């Protein structure tokens, strides 16, 4: 059986295990090379993915769920929720509408709440301003959003809109802060080879904390200056 043969060749090739850490303290370039080497895979889209997963992804990608009009509404709403500011761009700058299109197909339980919520919004705007949400003026759009963005003060008849806006807010924020732009905005500094030397001294001081002698003696501290 060739399966046995392929087995012997087992993809179990080892990434050079000596490159780590000796260098990553002083030399950033080496650190980046390290990341590149660790991340590198023969076929990034297929390595370590089950055939069932690949098939599902292909299927999702081949379908469209939201209409053009719905996508336009999602884009406007998303940018109201996460606008551009001094630190980073808006939800649409970070590709959030495309993420929302993907995730409702991946988690289909969101399909109906999203579609019916968008419909509800348009009907409300039609009744109030005689046009769908996207055609409303900015002032009208914000007036509409104000009526559904604050769960504790929203009127009872706005409950459907509140539930929809909560979902929209959650999807938008999750999509934004997991994008490259959003991760940089939030200030997550990990996901790279490094040495954990403990909490920085100035942070410890601010919180009136200190490592005990036992901890400093027993734990791996690298070149931490106590």
């Amino acid at each position, binding site marked *: 059986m060739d*399966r046995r043969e392929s*087995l012997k060749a*087992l993809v*179990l*090739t*080892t990434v050079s*295990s000596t490159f*780590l850490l000796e260098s990553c303290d002083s030399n950033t370039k080496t650190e980046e090379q390290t990341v590149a080497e*660790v*991340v590198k895979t*023969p076929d990034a889209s297929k390595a*370590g993915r*089950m055939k*069932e*997963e690949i098939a599902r*992804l292909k299927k*999702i990608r081949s379908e469209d769920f939201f209409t053009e009009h719905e996508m336009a509404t999602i884009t406007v709403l998303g940018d*109201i*929720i*996460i*606008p551009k*500011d001094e630190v980073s761009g808006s939800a649409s700058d970070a590709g959030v509408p495309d*993420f929302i299109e*993907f*995730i409702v197909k991946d*988690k289909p339980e969101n399909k109906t709440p999203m579609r019916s919520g968008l419909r509800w919004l348009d009907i409300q705007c039609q009744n109030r301003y005689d046009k769908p949400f996207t055609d409303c003026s900015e002032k009208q759009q914000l007036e509409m959003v104000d009526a559904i963005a*604050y*769960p*504790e*003060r929203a009127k009872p008849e706005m409950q459907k809109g509140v539930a929809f806006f909560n979902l929209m*807010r959650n999807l938008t*924020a*999750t*999509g934004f802060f*997991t*994008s490259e732009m959003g*991760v940089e*905005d*939030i*200030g*997550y*500094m*990990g*996901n*790279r080879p*490094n*040495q*954990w030397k*403990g*909490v*920085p001294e*100035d*942070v*410890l001081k601010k*919180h009136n*904390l200190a*490592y005990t002698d036992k*901890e400093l003696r*027993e734990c*791996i501290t690298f070149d931490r200056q106590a």
Partner: protein
Amino acid sequence: MAAFQIKEQPKKYDAVIVGSGAGGGMAAYTLAKSGLKVCLLEAGPMFDPATDSAQLKNPWESPRRGASTKFRPFGDFDGCYWGWEIDGEPYTKAEGTEWDWWRARMLGGRTNHWGRISLRFGPKDFKHKSIDGLGEDWPIGYEDVKPFYDKVDRLIGVFGTNEGLENEPDGIFLPPPLPRLHELKIKKAANGIGIPVIPSRLSILTKKINDERGQCFYCAQCGRSCKVYADFSSSSCLVKPAVATGNVDVIPNAMAREVVTNADGLATGVSYVDKDDMMEYQVDGRVVILAASACESARLLLNSVSRRHQNGLANSSDVVGKYLHDSTGASVSGVLPELMGRKRYNEDGVGGMHVYTPWWLDNKKLDFPRGYHIEYWGGMQQPAYGFGWGIEGLNGKLEMHGKTKEAGGYGKSLKEDYRFMYGAGVGMAGRGEALALESNYCEIDPNVVDIYGIPVLRFNVKYSDYEINQAKHMNQTFKEILHEMGAIITSGGDAGPHNNWGLQVPGKIIHEAGTVRMGNDPKKSALNKWSQAHDCKNLFCVDGGQFVSQGDKNITWTIMALSMRASEYIIDEMKKQNL
């Protein structure tokens, strides 16, 4: 259509092992190193963390931003194939009972993603009946297993500290990482109310131990499996070196159907379905070693009915499938206002907690007989799907930059709220010992088969008041710690009798054990103290199935120690011509 045929592999092995996780990997490694010829059957595909791990991927590299799927219930980057459900492989539950069954299908099994919490059982964990009169004592004690724990510590590597605690034995430890900020705060708060917090014990290499494996580079992603093999996965740390001896053939995508026995009732091999061509195969060996997971091993035995073994193989005692138990679990989490608006730095650390709480109380003074340990989490983690979710329930309760805002909202002010709250989360979960009861069991469902035509398991498990009382104690303790810390509780605060105090459904903690238990009495146990079937001397079970009870410890380290012990016994018995 071709006539039905079972293709028998011509090669005869010394051992056929079913399952390549912690138990099977260790057996393959130990036997192959001693020169025995081994065939390792795995029900899933090949997997090598070096090429197949999603380590160091960013959230935006997943179209679902790391969200879970049925293929990866712990998230898109998780290192485990399948989980609570597998296409074509159902299981059932008796009405009114609960059991959620996690199944991995890949080389290395669930060790590719596990928490690496590597705790030895203590002396009391093997002899609990002698202490409280409940359950059963093991036929072996700590002193029998200690030499193997020592060997596993040296072979695999584990960090921790020797604390001299009676039931948390010292080991051969690598240095642990320093606590993170929220862990220091947990420690201070817990210590203040008499709860110990000590360095965790995880099988992650903070120092290099050999040339085949790298050293931890602190990315916190052990759950994805490690490309430089700096944490323990059976695939990288056991199967790979076992294959390198030239003594092991791995057959992936091989779904074991039954253990084949001869007229004398001895095992001759294992029959299996090749998932790729759906044909039937058989592979023969001098011994058969089951390590398919506690429930899969029980299922195999119960499905291996023959004239000599009419109640299923190794089941004249009728205990196979019984005494099924999982760790208990309950959690409480919240946010810590003191950590809001915190300074950013990389606090990834190792995958998982840097500190934990071993069981610290005397059960004689409590209304539940067995203990639990506490696991902690929190801090500035890599954002993933779910980030910021439910802010409308939180941002109205907090002072943001000195003022309280209205819940919900949108725009620049909302964007600021996410930034302000990032990294302020903190949580804790108990992992406790459930009593192994005869009345909690899995059995063959007479009406259901999987797509391979193999009868499936039906579960019948219920928690008793002991576990519920324990969960109540967890809940109250966690709330107390979080209160001491000044945290606002966001989850688990409303637990009560209505939800069994947050007690997770059995099976959920993924520590299945007890279904093929060992013992000195062949009427009350399936295996003897060498993990060897009483009814069939060349059949062994080296996964969690053999456990009599599981203490308040995660079971992997003990699975490996017992698998190594059973394997050395097999080598010995083969030398003596007893097998």
